[in-house]
């Protein structure tokens, strides 16, 4: 028996390529839902406009600002680690997680409000409404829901890199994990950038 030599090839560009390819799959995953959205919106334009009136633009806008800001802190944390400023990078990462959590809390209250008012899939209030509104709320829950799951996963990943930064696994000489996590986080942000006008601003 031969002991297996420790093969560890660290390929920075390769890892980043892998992440980008993975992001492509995320884009296509969401594009399936955007397809449904665009078609049902075309068919039920009026209903969609009316249904969007139930949304709180303020909450949506606040969430947009939160997510945009979190994106900035994320990218700053990468800049910091590149310069070797470990603590600063950790502070930025923590801030990103906090913003992510704030986004989710905000979303939770938004959902709760709608559900209390009876707008949830298959509720008798909703079924009594026009087809377009049923579809609008279906899409609203599914799209923001799946997006929310992504925010949750992203925040989890950042927690992970936070500890890795503390332990020095992520460092000025090897920060690809942090950079890839950042890419994921930004993509989640990009998707929200589209969700916001499509659900909140079409009244």
């Amino acid at each position, binding site marked *: *028996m*031969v*002991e*297996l*030599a420790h*093969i560890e*090839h660290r*390929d920075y*560009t*390769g890892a980043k*390529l*892998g992440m980008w*390819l*993975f992001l*492509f*799959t*995320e884009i*296509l*995953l*969401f*594009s*399936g*839902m955007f*397809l*449904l959205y665009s*078609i*049902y919106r075309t*068919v*039920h334009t009026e209903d969609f406009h009316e249904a969007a009136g139930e949304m709180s633009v303020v909450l949506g806008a606040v969430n947009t600002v939160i997510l945009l800001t979190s994106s900035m802190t994320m990218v700053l944390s990468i800049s910091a680690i590149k310069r070797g400023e470990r603590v600063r990078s950790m502070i930025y990462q923590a801030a990103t997680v906090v913003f992510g959590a704030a986004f989710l809390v905000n979303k939770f209250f938004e959902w709760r409000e709608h559900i209390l008012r009876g707008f949830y*899939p*298959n509720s008798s209030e909703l*079924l009594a409404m*026009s*087809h*377009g509104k*049923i*579809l609008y709320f*279906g*899409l609203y*829950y*599914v799209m923001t829901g*799946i997006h929310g799951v992504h925010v949750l996963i992203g925040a989890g990943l950042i927690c992970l890199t936070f500890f890795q930064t503390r332990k020095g696994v992520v460092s000025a000489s090897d920060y690809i994990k942090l950079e890839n996590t950042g890419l994921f986080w930004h993509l989640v942000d990009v998707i929200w950038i589209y969700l916001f006008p499509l659900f909140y601003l079409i009244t």
Partner: protein
Amino acid sequence: METSFYHTRGRYPGVLGWLFTTDHKRIGLLYLITSLSFFFVGVGLGLTMRLELIRSGMHLYSAQTYNALFTLHGVVMIFLFIIPGIPSSLGNFVMPLQLGARDVAFPKINILSWWLFVIGGALAVTALFTGGGPPDTGWTFYVPYSIRTGTNVTLAVFGVFLIGLSSTLTGMNFLATIHRLRAPGLTWNRLPLFTWAIYATSWVQLLATPVLAITLLLIIMERSFGVGFFDPAKGGDPILFEHMFWIYSHPAVYIMIIPAMGVVSDIIPVFSRKVIFGYTAIAASSLTIAFVGYLVWGHHMFTSGMSDTSRVIFSFLTFIVAVPSGIKVFNWIASLYKGSIKLDAPLLYALGFIFLFSIGGLTGLINGALATNLHIHGTYFIVAHFHYVMFGGTAFGFFAGLHYWFPKMFGRLYKEYPAKLAFIILFIGFNLLYFSMFILGWEGMPRRYYDYLPRFNGPNLVSTIGSWILAVGLFIMFYNLIRSVFAGEKAGDNPWGGATLEWQTASPPPTENFESVPEVTKGPYTYR
């Protein structure tokens, strides 16, 4: 000489060393074993279905059972056998070797893919015995039926979702590998055509599978929460589901066939001892098929109620995709010209592939023409078409590759005579089994029928008899292969005299694949 990867101790000993390995060769073999096991499940189901269909009025089991059988047969064959079949097993084993790499780019993700695949498969099988009974929707999961049926669709669909995730990750992994880990000197125009094929396939896996994932998730949400996207009573549009399903599933048929084409492109030069004809054309046509394959999904929906304009557009695009397949066929045949041909089993299976795939592909043209499609859609004509391309095409290509790389995988040779005998029996059985279905289909026998009118008796009987002959052939082939794993003659490192990199190392290869990083100085099919 170094010890082969079978005898190298990894991080874990024994079985765990296989289940948690990160070695692409072991993972390739794991995939081979699992997908072949699923293949036998699917084959058994196919046989059981044919028994029921032997004549009209036959009642071996209930209609509900039959419906579950063909659903399972389709799901197993498509998602558990033929999609992972070539790329994940042969591709995993051979592609990094052909690159001169030590492993794929992300070995851990590679084993994760296998685990997702197995768990997904296990869930799909669990769905048979739990909940409201085995799913009965057909492999297409068309709504609203798949939403209304009381059977265990949700679990099965979730299983397929995981399998899709596995397929996506494999695609991502292979793309990164081919981009980043080519040996020095292995430029893009020296890449073996099998690797080119895997490359094109990986793009399709990467970009199409997520659409399936979301479609399946939507079925689950529809069933669990009643969101209403596909429920006409709530304004949903069932035809949109068909769009989303085929946006994935048409590209998926090219995930199935392109790797098989790659296998054939690698085998032909070796056994005719000459360079492949039209290397660039073959490599480029793989990419073209992958790309155009995106534009034609609507040809499955010519009678679905889709707009007539769409039907015309999709029919047009469908015909475009036939051209690159033709280019491949012509180049393969031209490659034989002035060769020095030895008709060994791999080449025999490869030529069988060309013939059967041509029949399947050419009948695809009949499917794609609008006027004829209205008649044959949803009949046995379609069933015949896709068995010709999938079984006659992909599975024969898979068998060809299995024989070709067998010595590399196991370090032993199979027996030549039974391999050829099996081919002949398979070939005869195959044509009896499936050609009869073309006739049935043109005469109007609908597919997914538990029972049929007596006037369809004749060809159905022939077809069932064909399935038995096919079974005999398969049995001989696999008996020969399995026996040879243990008792075959020792093969040298390069029994066929191949020029691609996988033949430049030991059989079976050592864990690190190559003793030193190989340098590539010539094309993949230069024998002199």
